[in-house]
């Protein structure tokens, strides 16, 4: 047999030493569901959903694919009946563990309408799960047709006060499945060390700082935890609230703030930016990460006080003018100054904020039309 080859669902694949079974599967577009794996961080094996079955020669056992290294000759099954059975159990436990009040979750034996009515009647009416339809746990529950209550005993929905005292991130720990992605993202990717596991046993939960809110911790609101949260425990305050069923388009672009040039996915509804995520985890320069400005500082684009009409100063006061009027005036004045005082009496400041194409045109305009090299920008400031 070849060196470093592994059989997954009957097909042979090559791997590089150090890769996990999950890495090899993902590289070859084999979908192994998982809720805690996060590229670039240590495997925790917390959710157990990524379990796979090894064939007899390998001990015939179930292992979590995210934390098991691929070994030569391994024979792996990712969707065997046994795996599916276990997966359903684990997903069910997670549905039971918290306030997963979608139609398939904790209220599985009621119809969706009944559930909605009930939810509207109690104090959680504003808190119908905000990620309904965009939840990895819910998606898996559908995929494996899990209805919750697998543990055979009815548990009261976990009630934890919702944390809303910061401007960007809503934390609803009643929906947390303790997958630990947010902890890994905060400590191992962004290294802001604002959140961690707290308490023990069944009391275990994710805590910010010394156990209070994000506002009192070292959190810098990069929102990485929100981006990686598979459920509705961490959600952006602004995005996808009332409008989450409105058609959304996504545009890959480069961030407009600092010089790092993070790649980002901009989500647009009705010609309005509603949310920004970091792009692909494999994509330089930012490997999917963003900072607070890049992720949340987009509201300038659709701001109501944008300039929309040219202004011309008349009698010391700026008044609205038509485009033609303003353009003609500028062309006329610049021509006059050029003739009267010479080209070097004119200057242009181009912009480190604008595109290469804008800047190229600005220097072409300066050199070819104004005929001066008096062009600069605020690189020094």
């Amino acid at each position, binding site marked *: 047999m070849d060196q470093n080859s592994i059989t997954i669902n009957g097909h042979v694949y090559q791997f590089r030493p150090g890769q996990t079974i999950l890495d090899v599967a993902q590289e070859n577009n084999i979908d192994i569901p998982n809720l805690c794996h996060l590229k670039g961080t240590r495997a925790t094996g917390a959710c157990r959903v990524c379990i796979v079955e090894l064939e007899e020669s390998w001990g015939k056992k179930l292992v979590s694919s995210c934390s098991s290294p691929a070994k030569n000759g391994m024979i792996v099954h990712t969707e065997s009946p046994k795996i599916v059975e276990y997966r359903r159990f684990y997903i069910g436990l997670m549905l039971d563990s918290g306030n997963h009040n979608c139609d398939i979750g904790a209220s599985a034996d009621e119809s969706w309408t009944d559930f909605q009515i009930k939810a509207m009647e109690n104090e959680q009416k504003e808190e119908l799960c905000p990620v309904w339809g965009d939840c990895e746990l819910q998606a898996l529950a559908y995929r494996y047709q899990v209805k919750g209550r697998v543990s055979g005993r009815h548990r009261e929905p976990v009630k934890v006060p919702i944390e809303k005292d910061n401007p960007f991130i809503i934390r609803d720990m009643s929906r947390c499945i303790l997958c630990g992605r947010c902890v890994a993202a905060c400590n191992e990717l962004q290294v802001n060390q604002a959140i961690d596991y707290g308490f023990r046993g069944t009391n275990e939960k994710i805590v910010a700082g010394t156990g209070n809110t994000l506002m009192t911790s070292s959190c810098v609101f990069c929102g990485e935890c929100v981006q990686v949260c598979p459920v509705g425990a961490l959600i952006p305050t602004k995005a996808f609230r009332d409008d989450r069923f409105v058609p959304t388009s996504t545009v890959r672009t480069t961030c407009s703030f600092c010089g790092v040039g993070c790649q980002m996915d901009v989500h647009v509804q009705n010609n309005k930016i509603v949310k920004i995520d970091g792009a692909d985890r494999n994509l330089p320069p930012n490997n999917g990460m963003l900072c607070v400005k890049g992720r949340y500082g987009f509201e300038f684009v659709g701001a109501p006080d944008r300039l929309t009409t040219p202004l011309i100063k008349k009698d010391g006061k700026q008044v609205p003018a038509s485009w033609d009027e303003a353009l003609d005036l500028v062309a006329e004045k610049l021509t006059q100054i050029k003739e009267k005082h010479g080209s070097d009496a004119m*200057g242009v400041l181009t912009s480190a904020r604008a595109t290469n194409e804008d800047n190229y045109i600005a220097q072409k305009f300066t050199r070819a039309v104004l005929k001066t*090299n008096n062009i600069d920008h605020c690189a020094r400031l």
Partner: protein
Amino acid sequence: MTNTIADIETSDLILVAGSNTTENHPVLSTFMKRAALKGKKLVVIDPRFVKLANNATRWLRPNPGTDIAWINGLMHVIIKEDLHDKTFIADRTENFDALKEVVASYTPERVEEITGIAAQDIIEVAREFAKAPAASICYCMGITQHTCGTDNVKSLANLSMLCGHLGKPGGGVNPLRGQNNVQGACDMGGLPNVFTAYQAVTDEDIRKKYETAWNVLDIPAKPGLPVTEMIEKAHDGELKSLYIMGENPMVSDPDLHHSEKAFSNLEFLVVQDIFETETTALADVVFPACSWGEKDGTFANTERRVQRVRKAVEPPEGARLDWEILCEIAKRMGYDMTYENSHEIYKEICAVTPSYRGITWERIEKVGIPWPCPDESHPGTPILHTTQFTRGKGRFHAIEHQPPAEQTDADYPYVLTTGRVLYHYHTRTMTSRTEGLNVLSPECFVEISHNDARKLGLGTGDVVNVSSRRGRISAKLKVSYQAVDGTIFMPFHFAQAAANRLTNAKLDPVAKIPELKVCAINIEPAA
């Protein structure tokens, strides 16, 4: 940057000088912090205990404006202890003897006297830096915004060459560029002395090439004025008109009183922007421009990677693209500049820009490519200077310490250094539109050490008057462990309490960068 951002994480030692990385380049700082987590050495050298110092293996604290001294001090120790890379020096560099002669007098003891950094720290960092298999130097405006900014940068290049840390993975001299496309604006010839890709305007062949490409005659050979000198000439009445595209110098420039006079003195000021700003307020004509989210094009990031910018939304009715506006004016001045779209402009850029020639939009559809990239089969250049430097051999520059232009005295006993905070961007025209960012960083503050605050009998939240020889502003005091006795920090973002009313417009003679990082101030309780 000579190296890539990802490369930083592979360094054995990262020396960060004059950069508040976690606040100004947050995502880039994660590469440094992760390296430190993995046990790599992270040395932060900054007058403030910036947040990154929490993650560092060492924090060295120089007095503001004494960078050449500590860099020479490191080199003194490295040469004295015979830790320099003799092969690299022999094969790749020249003028080593002159450097050796100058740094000979920078003993750790003398350096301690100038910089305040303990002699022992200089010795230990020198050893660590020289012995690291690959050491990366990252620096920012704390190095450049000085009257000796150019010499500061050359000194860092000396240090890197001395140990052979250039031209290899995990090494390099890496300036962290502050604005999304400041690299691109430079690449595109938005500078007074060069066309695109740094082709000199004084070179006749280059001018000929452009005259042919643009179908014009008489492109001037004389280099133009940098922005700082344009302001001077405007003040003196020699510069008559200024066309500003998307900048707000009335908050970002040093010594704003002076700038304000200069701008008011112009015969004709045109400003193109997306919002009304302190600068548009002075303009004779204001054009409404499209914003980032409404544009197609490219940016070049700090690692020289050319990446796509894509239009996400339609612009508000009435706003136009920056390049369209300029083309319209050109047409009205008798020169036909017509483009179908920004892609057509980009193709023209590639035709006249050797380092961009191989970077087509098709190739960077998914992943950006770092220039130079001379042709379409070239993969791009993540690491510069791998076999030789741009000029051939790397030249050592023998540089002496120079004190800042302004010194403290009895009337102005504190040093002011300025910078940014995480939650805002430059003059806040963009970030102030997101309410949450204003909540997290609502106003200007005067960061002061516990000792200094105690001496003044003041605490956090007390309003103080801060004055320099050029101006006076009021803001609230913020007592912080990040401040060191005698040095005050203020962000320059806030127009209401603009730190740049205080700063010194004294320039570096070569780069014409103002000394925004050091000026003398006084603090008094507001009446």
